[in-house]
């Protein structure tokens, strides 16, 4: 026990967070996310025993296994529902939700709507590889039009859902976007998301070299820009001088929509509203405000 107490007090290292070796393909973007996530935990000194990672099913859903904290690998599409139970009852815990594009926007779309709407306190990470990977390449709601998959070998027929627009449209209190191959930007994004109280929606472009090697050209940066602000997220260190950087005030919702609606890709903080009330807190407040009663009185109002 002495050991444990000391451990929780001494500085956290990446090694403390390691568990087993991930079972992902070589070059998978999930490695980048996992590493960035661990570095973020270390840099923020977030205690592992106070941390819960909740995920759905998918390649990305395995993340909780690979971080030595508490974790729930739930069922496909439903991690938000489980996270809600934790957020309501244990505000002391640090809560992270990991969800694939299929998990979050297809089977779990309803829960994402209500997670955003209820604005319960957690960091929500959307691993967007624009297809169903674990089930071997089917079209997802974010698959680009024309891209062939096993369920649409003729090419995916519909235009994709745009996650950022989706979140902004629902009135999300925090909307940011980043990518698995931008470690510095990714970590900074998580830090800002973590500092925000409410449902912090973090969209991550994630490479799936196994099923879609041509997606997301991580060698060039001409196809995206960074949104920055003194209260936002700085551009990725490595790319700062090679990439367009746009100053954007994250409290400007109209501008946020404009960036989200453009065909061009933007990374950074689109929008943040620190004043949106959190459902979990409001529900807990009901307990605080209610007149306390003894359990022995429960039948009193049924007395004859």
């Amino acid at each position, binding site marked *: 026990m002495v*050991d*444990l*107490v000391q*451990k*929780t007090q001494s500085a956290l290292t990446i090694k403390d967070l390691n568990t*087993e070796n991930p079972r992902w393909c070589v070059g998978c973007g999930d490695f980048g996310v996992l590493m960035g996530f661990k570095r973020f935990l270390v840099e923020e000194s977030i*205690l*592992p*025993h*106070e941390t*819960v*990672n*909740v995920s759905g099913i998918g390649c990305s859903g395995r993340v*909780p*296994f690979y971080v*030595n*904290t*508490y*974790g*729930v*690998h*739930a*069922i496909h599409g*439903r991690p*938000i*529902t*489980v*996270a*809600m*139970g*934790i957020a*309501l*009852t*244990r505000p*002391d*815990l640090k809560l992270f939700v990991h969800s694939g594009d299929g998990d979050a926007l297809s089977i779990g779309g*309803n*829960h994402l*709507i*209500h997670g955003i709407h209820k604005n319960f306190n957690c960091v929500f990470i959307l691993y967007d590889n624009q297809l169903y990977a674990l089930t071997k390449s089917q079209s997802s709601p974010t698959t680009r039009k024309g891209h062939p998959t096993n369920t649409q070998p003729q090419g995916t027929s519909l235009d994709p859902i745009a996650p950022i627009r989706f979140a902004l449209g629902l009135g999300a209190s925090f909307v940011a976007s980043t990518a698995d191959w931008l470690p510095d930007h990714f970590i900074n994004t998580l830090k800002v998301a973590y500092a925000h109280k409410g449902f912090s929606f973090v969209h991550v472009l994630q490479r799936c070299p196994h099923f879609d090697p041509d997606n997301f050209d991580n060698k060039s940066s001409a196809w995206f820009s960074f949104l920055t602000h003194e209260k936002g997220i700085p551009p990725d260190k490595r790319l700062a001088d090679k990439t367009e950087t746009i100053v954007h005030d994250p409290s400007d919702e109209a501008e946020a929509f404009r960036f989200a609606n453009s065909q061009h890709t933007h990374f950074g903080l689109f929008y943040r509203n620190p004043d949106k009330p959190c459902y979990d807190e409001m*529900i*807990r407040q*009901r*307990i605080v*405000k*209610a*007149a*306390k*009663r003894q*359990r*022995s009185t*429960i*039948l009193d109002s*049924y*007395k*004859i």
Partner: protein
Amino acid sequence: MDNKTIHHVRVGRFELLMDAGFGAQKAGDILIRAFARIGKYVFIEPMIPAEISPPARSRPALSGVIMRVAEFNLENIGNNTDVILASHEVVLDRRIDDEEYNPNCRILLDMCDKDLPSATYDNVLQRIKDLRLHIYPFEVAPGPQAIIKSLAGKAKNMYYLGMLACIYNAPEEFVINEIKLTFGAKLREDVFKKNIDLFGYGYQYAKEHIPFGYEVKSDPGKNSHEKILIDGNSALSMGVIDAGIKLVSGYPITPASSILHTLAKVLPSFGGMVHQAEDEISAIGTAIGAYYAGTPAMTCTSGPGLSLKQEFIGYATAAEIPIIIVDVQRSGPSTGMPTKTEQSDLLSVMFGSHGDNAKIVFGVFDIIDCLYAPQLARYLAEKLRLPVFIMSDFQTANSYKVLDKPTLFEMNDSNGISEFVLNHFGIERLPEDIAMVRTEQAVVGTPGKMRRVTGLNTDETGSVNYFARANQRSHTVRNEKIHCVQRALKQPKLFGDQKDGEVLIVGWGSAKGAVEEAVSYFQHAGQAVSGMCLRFVNPLPPMLKEIFSRFKHVVTVELAYGDQYKHAPLAMLLRSATLIDVQAIVCGATGRPITPRSIERRVKELFYG
């Protein structure tokens, strides 16, 4: 009226039928409260339409209340009705379809709408005549009629209340007092006075014009305990508080919603919260999340919601997260009949969710079981880290009864369950060393014990493991949890003192009252009939085969469909568990509760014919 015939009875059953929204249940509620206060036992079953306000004078608008009053503790709503008061012929005609009247049933029919251009009064009166029931048409006099009109027709229930109070000899002052308690603070003084006047008019009318009355005997000596009047869902809700459950999440669905409504008002006062989720999947997911994080949690639903929860139920089994699920059964399949009772979720609860997934399933007999069920469910869920189902049904959820005020226990942790509750449900305390699939089950937040749960198969360390032996082991461990409950269950009790013989009648859950009454009827008649009712259906209690084999015939009575070629659910279960030729003899999906009389009729027909 001087030449009234007064019937002296030990138990009486009567009903009030009106259009939805006109307060039939409110009137019934007031009347039985008055009865309860003078020391009578009552059992009340509301009849509720599935829609909010179906058009008046239409069959779907039937909204009413069945009341049973006795000098002794009542376990069910009984068989048939002695007196029906109907506000017009359409609701009466609809209710007659249910065939729940006594051969000498007396029907009071308000002829208020007889001038409407319709032939239905004639048809219905003819129908009643053909059935040889007694009809007493009446009209509300112009005086009270004018008051009713001034209240937009709304207070007619008070007039009917007056009539019924007089016919059943409920002391006027007690009823008036209940009207005060019900409306006193809510109505404007003049409106309130009109209500009381209407009650008086109705009472007076019956006194002068209705040639019969009933006197339910009472035995004040044995009835001095403090009493409560409570319905099944309220009892269950209070049981949730008593059990220390701190999060209840659900999605509105009849007939489970009232649990959410009741708890939403009071649970915060006891440190708990009610969460209305976006759907039933989310509701159970949130309860599972809370329980994983160490907070006792429950979700409540009915058939359609049960279907949605199935994937998460198997998940909880695999991930070893405790979860309590209340299924208030209603008539299915699909949306079925939302406000009618049935017991047909048995198999989808037992075998729902995919793969072989272990869970505990028990039904409630009655309202008192509803109160204690959450404690037992919490105990089992936490000890076994499995889903535990409490099976109720529309009938149990919505019926009210008077009972002696039960003892409360204020359970704080699973080990704190009282011997009384364990005893009540016929189960011994479980052993301390029940094996889990994963050795480590630390609650989130415990330093140094970080663990990940998953629906994937794991070995005992919690690592994902797809090897043959590891998966087989998980199944063995989970099923052993169920077996250890079976070993802890006591042999089910037989009703009465017939330990062997001709016929054994078996029911489960809410069938108990009807089975017990039917068995008592046969045993009084000297016939070798016995009966039992099961609470636990998964696991089944031990010794069933041995008990069954002492009877020539073993039959089930259940509110689920069965026929010559299809075994009803309970019969199917019992056949497979005992290899005895169990046949369902009452297995209708009529939406109406099982009556003792229907059991008696079938047993006579088949075995004493």
